């Protein structure tokens, strides 16, 4: 293997990113499960688990900086490593948001008495989980089309948020006995929307690692 | 060539003419000598001249050829042992700046400038008379060995010095001692340069007359022992020409001598060329 030491280090980087991605997607899942079942123990797990996500960010960051120092990467190698550095920031924020959702779950389960199916919220959460997984796959495979999918998916997440917001407003107008619960639902939706944005950022960095161009959602062109 | 206004000036032509003339004269002199010898000798080159036995009727040159080979062999053995040995000491073992090195160098340079007749006289006085070897192959070989010693030493020295230090370092780095390094790595690498010197030495021996006449003598038979006298090809030719009876055979011998000398020169040039190519890699 040519540049075997470098190649081994890059493999480790990719594996660590996958692990971190798994950690945050599982956190999102668990936070939603704890919400639907009012499982406060599970919620507390998610909150504690964020510590591991933060540690992973630091360790991958150290690894990237060491790679820059030791291997003097250029071209696609350099883009790959700088993309990883940026991606972990977004992944870490996603982890934070999942923990925040779990926090709200704790207070929601205390105050709420009404049954809520959280149908739309669940769909929203599933979408964001799909986005994170797809973005990391796009990075791993260097797949531009997959990255574009993720960027497009954020619109759906935003649409879900709008729908939930409308439902909450309607709820406030119809039936005001549990204002705290409605506010909690809206906040949870907002966090999920933020998760969608961060996942979309990850996809933009993946595009950069492949093409060398970083375009934000404002001046977005879908690549063929 | 100086460029004037496109037309070569008369001055340029004049110089060119002189240079061409000089070359032509040099080459023609050489060609003349060769032509003269060959035209006078080849008609008289008979197979009988290569009979094993020399008789006064048939002045065969074969014994002389054999004798030449014998003397070359003995002289080379002696000269190579001492010449290569001394060169190895000077290059590989003596410390730089050692006064002995300077002394040896001056001695050898001087030796190579001494006229061969002086060697002949020395050989006669010392080997033939003082040591009482009489006119003998041994006396002749020893004398001629001393004559070519500086050449062998010089070319061996240069060949050894041309072997890059990095090869010796590589050998030491692998845990080899000096002796092994010199004999297994340095000497083999220097072999072609040494051979070039050896061939020069052979050339000198073949052409030698004065030194051998007074030491190896002029006996026409193939010697049965190293202490017998024996004439070489050059001496044979000299004697034939001197007698006045066998001028034609003398010419024939000269042709053979010429051929041998030319062959040796070609061989030496070929080896030198190969050497140059290898070291320019």
């Amino acid at each position, binding site marked *: *293997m*040519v*540049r*075997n*030491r*470098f190649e081994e280090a890059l493999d480790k980087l990719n594996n660590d990113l996958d692990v971190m991605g798994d950690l945050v997607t599982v956190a999102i899942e668990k936070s939603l499960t704890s919400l639907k079942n009012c499982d406060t123990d599970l919620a507390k797990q998610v909150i504690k688990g964020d510590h591991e996500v933060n540690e992973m960010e630091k360790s991958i960051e150290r690894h990237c*900086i*060491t790679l820059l*120092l*030791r*291997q*003097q990467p250029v071209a696609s190698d350099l883009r790959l490593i700088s993309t990883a550095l940026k991606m972990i920031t977004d992944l870490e924020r996603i982890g934070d948001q999942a923990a925040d959702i779990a926090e709200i779950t704790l207070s929601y389960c205390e105050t709420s008495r009404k049954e809520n199916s959280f149908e739309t919220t669940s769909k929203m959460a599933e979408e964001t989980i799909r986005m994170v997984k797809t973005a990391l796959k796009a990075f791993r495979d260097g797949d531009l089309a997959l990255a574009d999918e993720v960027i497009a998916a954020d619109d759906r997440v935003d649409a879900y948020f709008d729908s939930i917001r409308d439902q909450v407003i309607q709820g406030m107008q119809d039936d005001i006995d549990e204002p705290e619960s409605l506010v909690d639902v809206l906040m949870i939706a907002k966090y999920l929307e933020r998760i969608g944005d961060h996942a979309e950022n990850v996809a933009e960095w993946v595009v950069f690692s492949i093409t060398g161009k970083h375009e934000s959602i404002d001046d977005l062109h879908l690549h063929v | 060539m100086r460029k004037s206004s496109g037309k070569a000036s008369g001055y340029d032509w004049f110089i060119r003419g002189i240079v061409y003339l000089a070359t032509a004269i040099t080459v023609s002199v050489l060609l003349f000598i060769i032509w003269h010898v060959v035209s006078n000798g080849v008609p008289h080159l008979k197979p009988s001249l290569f009979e094993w036995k020399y008789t006064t009727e048939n002045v065969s040159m074969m014994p002389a050829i054999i004798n030449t080979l014998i003397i070359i062999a003995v002289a080379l053995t002696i000269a190579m042992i001492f010449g290569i040995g001394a060169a190895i000491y000077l290059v590989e073992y003596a*410390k*730089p700046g050692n006064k002995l090195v300077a002394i040896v160098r001056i001695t050898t340079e001087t030796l190579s400038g001494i006229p061969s007749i002086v060697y002949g006289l020395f050989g006669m006085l010392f080997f033939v008379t003082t040591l009482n070897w009489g006119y003998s192959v041994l006396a002749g070989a020893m004398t001629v060995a001393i004559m070519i010693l500086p050449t062998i030493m010089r070319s061996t020295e240069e060949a050894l010095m041309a072997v*890059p230090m*990095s*090869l010796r*370092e*590589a*050998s*030491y*780095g*692998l*845990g*080899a*001692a000096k002796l*092994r390094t010199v004999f*297994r*790595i340095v000497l*083999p*690498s220097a072999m072609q340069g040494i051979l070039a010197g050896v061939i020069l030495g052979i050339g000198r021996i073949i052409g030698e007359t004065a030194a051998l006449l007074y030491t190896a003598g002029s006996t026409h038979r193939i010697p049965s022992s190293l202490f017998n006298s024996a004439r070489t090809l050059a001496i044979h030719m000299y004697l034939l020409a001197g007698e006045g009876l066998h001028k034609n055979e003398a010419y024939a011998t000269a042709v053979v001598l010429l051929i041998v000398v030319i062959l040796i020169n070609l061989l030496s040039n070929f080896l030198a060329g190969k050497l140059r190519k*290898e070291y320019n*890699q």
Partner: protein
Amino acid sequence: MDNIITIRDFNSYYGDFHAIKDINMDVEKNKITAFIGPSGCGKSTLLKSINRMNDLVEGFHCKGTMMLEEQEIYKMDVYELRKRVGMVFQKPNPFPISIYDNIAYGPRTHGIRKKAELDEIVEKSLRQAAIWDEVKDQLNKNGLSISGGQQQRICIARALAVNPEVILLDEPTSALDPISTTKIEDLLNELKKEYTIVIVTHNMQQATRVSDYTGFFLLGDLIEFGDTDQVFSIPKDKRTEDYITGRFG
């Protein structure tokens, strides 16, 4: 930490010139240690002191201690030392004999004569040097008839053939093209599993790519020695920082 070479208060001189001053250093087993520093800083001198190649230089003398595991380097049998500590030089220097004989030279020197044994050693060494596939059908070819990068790998195989414990490399890739350089760097990374490697390099990027420990030398002194990561990211001495960032005059 398993140290295979320990150096204590080592000083060396060429005549009156004090080339290396009070070096204290350990070389860890199965790791790659790099010596860096500007020209004339003593890094090559120190390297050559380890296998006593400097003994060949007129006027060289030294004091202090250098240990190869339990034995003192300057007291042990020098031929035994050079069997245990091999060296690869800056300019590839294969002998002008066949590739096979090049590799077999070391083992033959140390008493191995049987052809079967030599065949095995030659193949093993060429495989370890990652060049067996390229030359296995040309073992009789002259060592000089191959490319520079291949010649250097032959020299590495030749050093491996005597089964050393330590391999010293003195700027081994400075005369080679980038691709050959990468091949040899990859090779060193593999070799450190079985051997200990000390490499002198004037290419700092090579030191960062290849080494586990780095020693920075300046005018005969060892200014700093440590983990390569630490030396190159947070050097302790300003002189080290100036050198590696290229602010040296």
